[in-house]
């Protein structure tokens, strides 16, 4: 066997870290996608000038490093007089961060449906809502899903940064083990990397296959 000071307990510690990584990812993706759909549909359907401020705001989330966003939120929320755990701050920031990217994906998806198709739907008597649900949604989904899967994986990897404000997710827990057992950082890191890879790789493969199948059937 491999000669290591790593015990079963330490491996369990890493797995727990992976659990936090997955939990934060899930919360950020669910909340961020809901918000992102709202923002994206607004950006695609409302007149351009009316959503400029929203567009600017979302652009900030995409142009400022996530680490800076986390530190800013972590220092600003107490200024507002609100007590929040690092976990809550992380979920909030990552959800907004996700929504900014998701809004762009949704906007692109909605805009990919030709306006003539939507006019045709409306002139056949469909309501705005029916048009969105029966025409735009199925057509846009093909454009959006591959990017959305990419976004999900991106956010999963980005959760590695919340360790900086004190959430013990997968990468942070590996770093804690490294500080305790200073002589085998490479081995510990490789276990953490393997866990990330095992989460990410199957999903990215699934996304690629889905994209391929849709392209072939077009």
């Amino acid at each position, binding site marked *: 066997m491999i000669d290591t000071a790593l015990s079963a307990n330490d491996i369990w510690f890493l797995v727990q870290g992976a659990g936090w990584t997955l939990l934060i990812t899930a919360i950020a993706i669910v909340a961020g996608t809901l918000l992102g759909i709202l923002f994206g549909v607004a950006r695609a359907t409302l007149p351009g000038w009316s959503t400029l401020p929203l567009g600017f705001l979302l652009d900030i989330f995409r142009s*400022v490093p996530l680490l*800076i966003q986390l530190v*800013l939120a972590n220092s600003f929320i107490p200024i507002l007089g609100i007590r929040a755990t690092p976990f809550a701050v992380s979920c909030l920031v990552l959800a907004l961060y996700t929504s900014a990217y998701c809004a762009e994906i949704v906007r692109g998806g909605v805009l990919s449906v030709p306006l003539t198709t939507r006019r045709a739907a409306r002139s056949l008597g469909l309501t705005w809502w029916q048009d969105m649900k029966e025409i735009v949604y199925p057509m846009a989904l093909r454009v959006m899903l591959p990017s959305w899967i990419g976004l999900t994986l991106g956010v999963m990897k980005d959760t590695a940064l919340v360790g900086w404000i004190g959430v013990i997710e997968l990468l942070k827990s590996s770093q804690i083990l490294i500080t305790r057992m200073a002589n085998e950082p490479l081995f510990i890191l490789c276990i953490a990397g393997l866990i990330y890879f095992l989460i990410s790789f199957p999903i990215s493969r699934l996304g690629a296959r889905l994209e391929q199948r849709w392209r072939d059937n077009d």
Partner: protein
Amino acid sequence: MGVFNYTFHWRPAFQALPAMLEGALVTIQLAVLSMLFGIAIGVVLSLMRGSKNRLLSGFAVTWVEIARNTPALFQIYIAYFGLGQIGIRLDSFIALLIGITFNNAGYLAETFRGGMRAVPPTQTRAARSLGLSAVDAYRLIVLPQMFRVVFHPMTNQMVWAILMTSLGVVVGLNTDLTGVTQELNVKTFRTFEYFAIAAVMYYLIAKFVTLGARAIAWRLFRY
């Protein structure tokens, strides 16, 4: 306890602007270097991936998949803590540069692979039958079309590279924009003020890159 129980102190923060601007230069330097190395390695990886030699293509696939399926911070940790174990001690600047370059190269290799597939071989044949030499056909017909396809993903990667440089602080870098900001923060505990200014600077750098790229694209790619 009111909302603004906290008093903002912007004046000392603004006094730190010159130091932060110097940090911003290091940030840009890191991003540019990591892109230049990333592009060079990315081209090589995309060529290796298309090669019939299983060893070469396997190496390229492994690089690309690790770069794309693990966090950038993990890749930086490997360069900083991991390589230390096998006797390669790197300072945080070099470790960060290696980590981001590794990441850039992985993503760019995929971009270039897509770019190569985007130009159909019929184009080369048409160019050759019009009398262009092989080199000219590649230089004048294939490359410009490929460049058009990969230009936008490349500028995206450049913005990513800038954002990734902020991770240097986690491995102790104190000369880039985030590093300088963190040093000021540790001295004064005016976290919000300093990091807000840093955020504005990152935003401006990122905007400069996107707008610059848009201007170049407009100049190069209009018919």
